[in-house]
């Protein structure tokens, strides 16, 4: 026993090192499983508030372009108003609540922090459980798809962005309707890849890529990006397609969190198929 104590005190430095390294690896592994541990992530109160203070200052520099985006979106919304349509045939009954059930609800929010230089990038947003935000909701901006809510605290939530190794977005080519999955493979934060498009599909540079709405996370038809280049490796049935994302993740500001009313219903129905 005496020898043991002597041994430990003699090599105290090495033991302490082993102990601390062990703790950090435990933290690391836990962190990987849960993506973010509860306390020390960027949606916690202290750092979340610090980021939002800094963002308050930074916002002024972006005001001009944000205003332009908002104005553009206003114009689009204005053009879908009933008031902008004229009745052509007086006998048609126009408004009927039983025909249109509301499917998605949008909550406006502000991005307070964003990263683009990691393998797994997250965005912190200033709305949390107090505002009714739940894990799994989609996040979009006027320009396109942003990501999926991953963690929620009282006042903030962190969003797994499209620039995340493990995040795949179901997307389709607007013109032909072929469906693929959008993934991001490190490096350039403006470029992502569209997979699973078979080789008989006709493709053009500049084709619009939009969301499918299949997973009920994002509404159908949200912009994702444009094709900037593609090639067909020999002996392969699928294209390699490069997509320029329509959202610049380094200048995010106003975003919308999307709540789907029918997501649970769809998932329950689909779960019945698996149960058999």
């Amino acid at each position, binding site marked *: 026993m005496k020898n043991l104590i002597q041994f430990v005190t003699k090599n105290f*430095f090495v033991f302490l090192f082993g102990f*601390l390294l062990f703790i950090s690896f435990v*933290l*690391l592994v836990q*962190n990987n499983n849960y993506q973010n541990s509860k306390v*020390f992530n*960027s949606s916690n109160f202290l750092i979340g508030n610090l980021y939002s203070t800094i963002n308050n200052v930074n916002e002024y520099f972006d005001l001009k372009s944000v205003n332009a985006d908002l104005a553009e979106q206003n114009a689009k919304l204005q053009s879908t108003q009933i008031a902008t349509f004229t009745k052509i045939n007086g006998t048609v009954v126009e408004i009927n609540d039983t025909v249109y059930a509301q499917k998605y609800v949008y909550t406006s929010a502000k991005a307070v922090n964003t990263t683009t230089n990691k393998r797994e990038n997250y965005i912190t947003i200033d709305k949390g459980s107090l505002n009714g935000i739940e894990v799994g909701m989609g996040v979009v901006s006027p320009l396109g798809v942003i990501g999926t809510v991953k963690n929620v605290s009282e006042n903030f939530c962190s969003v797994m962005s499209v620039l995340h190794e493990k995040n795949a977005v179901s997307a389709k080519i607007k013109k032909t309707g072929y469906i693929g999955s959008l993934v991001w493979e*490190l490096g350039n934060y403006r470029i992502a890849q569209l997979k699973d498009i078979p080789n008989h599909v006709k493709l053009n540079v500049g084709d619009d890529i939009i969301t499918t709405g299949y997973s009920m996370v994002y509404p159908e038809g949200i912009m994702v990006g444009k094709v900037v280049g593609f090639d067909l490796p020999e002996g392969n049935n699928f294209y390699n397609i490069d997509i320029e994302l329509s959202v610049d993740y380094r200048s995010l500001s106003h975003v919308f969190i999307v709540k789907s009313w029918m997501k649970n219903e769809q998932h329950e129905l689909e779960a019945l198929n698996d149960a058999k």
Partner: protein
Amino acid sequence: MIREVLKYCISFFVLILFQGLILNNIEFGGYVVPFLYVVFIIALPFETPNWLVLILGFILGIAIDSFTSTLGMHTSATVFVAFCRFYLLKIVAPRGGYEFNTKPRIQDMGLVWYLFYATILIILHHLFLFYVESFKMTQFFYTLGRALASALFTVVLVLIVQLFNYKSTKSA
């Protein structure tokens, strides 16, 4: 003594804020990211007890990790560097040991010594950090390139910081 401790405390917080709020946003094509905060461990006085260096490294790592929501990643790297520092200081010690009242900085130890000492620690730190981040060997050379390029960038930043110190102590 108290003044020294206070000085290190302030530099601790300044480095964390500088890293978390400014340097984390720097990137060249997603390839090079400087991690200047490790200079805190490099600059600790020679007489600092070994265990204290380890503990300080651990706290520094936790603080940096809180900014990036990557708990454990920077922490393991800083603890590793704190460990390596002890042995490196033994290896690069001048004949007759370190003189009293000298610190690991250019004006005390000379440019060559400092470059050698800091560069080795920074490269060790970046290699450890980037491999822990990728956690797989499939992109071995890509990660190696990222780590070395970022380490080079950090060394340049460390030298710039040192030059600031150099001037202020000379005029004081």
